[in-house]
């Protein structure tokens, strides 16, 4: 494990709440509000970790295990991700399958914890979450296949490594399509507009937020932190694809930071300028992302 890898793991642990803060600040500025401090999510997490938790009589061990396993799975997925072109902590051929399935595990336990409450609203949220996630899965794999074919590498480390900037020379259209597909997926997987509105107030229309209605205290802190970390992972992948590379370790770290925070600004822009889609239109968006990335793959395979 190189010092850069260690630094990236530290960034992965430290930065996710800041990314959420950037998203919210962007939205606030565009709406002409001052908005909460950029560091607000750190304060929230610290507050939640100090609190106790209230449990429903209906819940069992599944409800208590959900946030713990979910956070651990997302953090483990982070071990596999190469950031800024530096090698990841663990890398091997086909590791992105494990990456995708670890995110799947996090989703699975969150949905189970929601169903454990016996609340109709949480059942609704869990049903929507697993539906949209399973429709997003093929799109994610198609995007990753595009990256694999363009860079000639089968590991995340290779796909996002030094070969990626070079791949833009011969596979630019496909990579651009895949990047668009991945951005749509990042919005869908992280429960952002236009798929889900993190600020909505009506439980009937929520997806992710309604699943965690009954969690509190450290459990809720784990969930919020895990969700932020997942957004950060997608941001790191996307910024690497779009921004390419520069010489020197320091400059690439700066580029990584700028890219991830820029991703946060992008998410904030989308949220400011778009309304969320009707629930029955969301599958069309996800299938659209699949078709886009399938098209990118065909461009490379022809």
């Amino acid at each position, binding site marked *: 494990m190189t010092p850069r890898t260690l630094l990236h793991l530290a960034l992965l642990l430290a930065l996710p709440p800041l990314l959420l803060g950037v998203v919210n600040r962007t939205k606030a500025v565009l709406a002409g509000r001052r908005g909460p401090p950029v560091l607000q999510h750190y304060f929230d997490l610290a507050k939640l970790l*100090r609190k*106790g*938790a*209230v*449990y*429903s*009589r*209906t819940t*069992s061990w599944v409800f208590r*295990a959900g*946030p*713990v*396993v979910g956070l*651990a799975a997302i*953090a*483990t997925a982070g*071990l*596999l991700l190469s950031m800024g072109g530096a090698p990841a902590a*663990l*890398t*091997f*051929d*086909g*590791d992105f*399958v*494990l990456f995708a*399935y670890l995110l*799947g*595990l996090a989703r*699975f336990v969150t*949905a*189970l914890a929601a*169903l*454990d409450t*016996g*609340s109709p*609203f949480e*059942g609704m949220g*869990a*049903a929507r979450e*697993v*539906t949209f996630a*399973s*429709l997003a*899965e*093929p799109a*994610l794999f198609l995007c990753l*296949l595009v990256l694999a*074919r363009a860079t*000639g590498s*089968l590991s995340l480390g290779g796909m996002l490594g030094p070969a990626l900037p070079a791949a833009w020379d011969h596979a630019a259209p496909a990579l651009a399509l895949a990047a668009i597909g991945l951005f749509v997926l990042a919005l869908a997987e992280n429960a952002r507009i236009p798929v889900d509105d993190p600020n909505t107030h009506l*439980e009937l229309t929520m997806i992710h937020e309604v699943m965690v209605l009954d969690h509190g*205290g*450290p*459990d809720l802190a*784990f969930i919020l932190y895990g969700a932020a970390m997942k957004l950060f992972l997608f941001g790191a992948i996307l910024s690497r694809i779009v921004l390419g590379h520069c010489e020197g370790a320091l400059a690439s770290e700066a580029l990584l930071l700028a890219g991830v925070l820029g991703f946060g600004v992008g998410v904030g822009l989308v949220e400011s300028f778009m309304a969320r889609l009707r629930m029955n239109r969301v599958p069309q968006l996800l299938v659209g992302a*699949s078709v886009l990335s*399938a098209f990118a*793959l065909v461009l490379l*395979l022809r």
Partner: protein
Amino acid sequence: MILACLAGAIALPALSGLAAAGLARRPALAQGTACALLCAGAALGAGAGAAVLAGARAEAAELGFRLDGVGAVFLVAICAVAAAGAVYGLRYHRQAEARGAAVRVQLFYGLAVAGMVALVAASNAIVFLVGWEVMALANFFLVLTDHDRPEAQRGAFLFLMATHVGTLALFAVFALLRQAAGSFDFAAMAGLPAGGALGTRVFLLALVGFGLKAGLVPFHFWLPPAHAAAPSHVSALMSGVVVKTGIYGLLRVTGLFDGIPPWWGAAVLAAGGASAVIGVALALAQHDLKRLLAFHTVENVGIIALGAGLGLLGRARGEPALVLLGFAGAALHVVNHALFKSLLFLGAGAIQHATGTRELDRLGGLARGMRATAILFAIGAAAIAGLPPLNGFVSEWLVYLGFLRALGRPGGLAFAAVGAPLLALAGGLAAACFAKVLGVVFLGTPRTAEAEGAHEPPGVMLAPMAALAAACAAIGLAPAALVPPLGRAAADWSRLPAHLLAGPAEEAAAGAARVSAVALALLALVAAAWALRRRRLAARPAAPAVETWSCGFSAPTPRIQYTGSSFAELLVARFRWAVPVRREGELPRGPFPATASFRTHVLDPVLDLALVPAALAYRWLSDRARRLNVRRIQLQMLLVLATLVAVLGWGFVWWPIP
């Protein structure tokens, strides 16, 4: 030595039922003896399989038996599931209560196991077919255990019909092979060229014959009714290993040929992709726990076929890495699916035992009363959904890796990689489906009084489930050790020299070691996060438990919970093209609706929309034809003559003159 073990593995299970019948005066002793005999046979068989996978060879050509790596993989799976089911049956289907029915079950269970062991160890088509038919007929009687229930009669009839059509195709397969090779010995058939008309005929017939047994779409229609009707430990055997004999047969027959054309691989890949996606889509729509599990067997057989198709493509294009990854993924998934599917069926049996129902929407909250069952079932569910750190992930990962290797190759081979998103879709849907099962059955509040009073099954039923779950976890955490034996089996199947496969096998083993490192990291992080949560919560006094907050709803009842059907509705609506749903009832109308009722019934696209209408049309036609000829003897004779001329003349016109 290995042959002696093999003989024991065939004889002891076959005879175990006689002990149950002979000691019928003392049912507990009888059942215990039968179970001990069967377990001893299974232990011998598993030992023989392990020895062969470790590199030993066992051959008795004069008797018609030879165990190679391919057979050994299946043998280990068969023995593990058979033993677990037999122990479970001690309490689930007690001879002291069921008497004659239990004797019958034990008799045919033992025969089915013996038939399967014989067929995977056969070196000769006749022995293979004898084992095949013993297994099939024993299974027919096993499905018919509760012979007074219409559900069992229908399931058994469909099973018998499907298995006989399949056997007919297999007779043709082996007759053609015998004609070409001059012997029924597999060794004599080996090396036949696959390119010509013989290869094409044999392959297509084998795809139908073995596809019917394996339950590949569109030959899956018999599987859910039959598997749901049998007692649960029999369902575990049938879904866990009996369907795999179809996969074994397909591998065995394709293993005989040289110079495989690429379209064989493409055909198996297409069948696998269709089975994986359509199987899981149909599973999502089910209301009955055992039918749902049976449709997941269709899905998993599809995943196995994806691996096998990749292996065939690799052989066609001379790519050892594809051969190894495809075959190893398929073979490991055979074992893995045998383990977690039998675990899930045994869990379903425990639920039925405790509540008397398999209707998902009549259960709920069972995790409270059946804590151990819930944990074991959840392990099986996570494994079948392919989630790390369990075994289902490892075999799917090998298949994914095969698709990725194909992606890097030039030409049309790279297009095989589109199987990866299909597999991902099936994986996502399987996770959704098991979130539904776990949520509706084990979590929330009980929906009925039966679910309220659920209790843990006895230890004799829990122990085999715990053993299967432990095997799932062990394979998931330490898969690297399994790759070299699978590589040897791949060499046996593909007729490639072992040294060509050694390189890819080492690479796959290294990757598998990394997978287990990540799995351990995941467990460590879970432990760390759990410890942190404990510390934080211990710092504060525990708050009293309250009612779930249903957005201010003050009098929640269990009926406001999401049901299994409502949970799956969003996804089932996306798959309407594959999942026909019949809706009945009156929807509420007008400002003051009087009565309203609504029910949905999920149809099988092949059985209900194609086979049943075709059979009805055929009956209608036969009725018409019968009315035609009853009047006059002359007319009848004329019809007979016309038919004869048509039948004989057809041969003259159609058959190519040599």
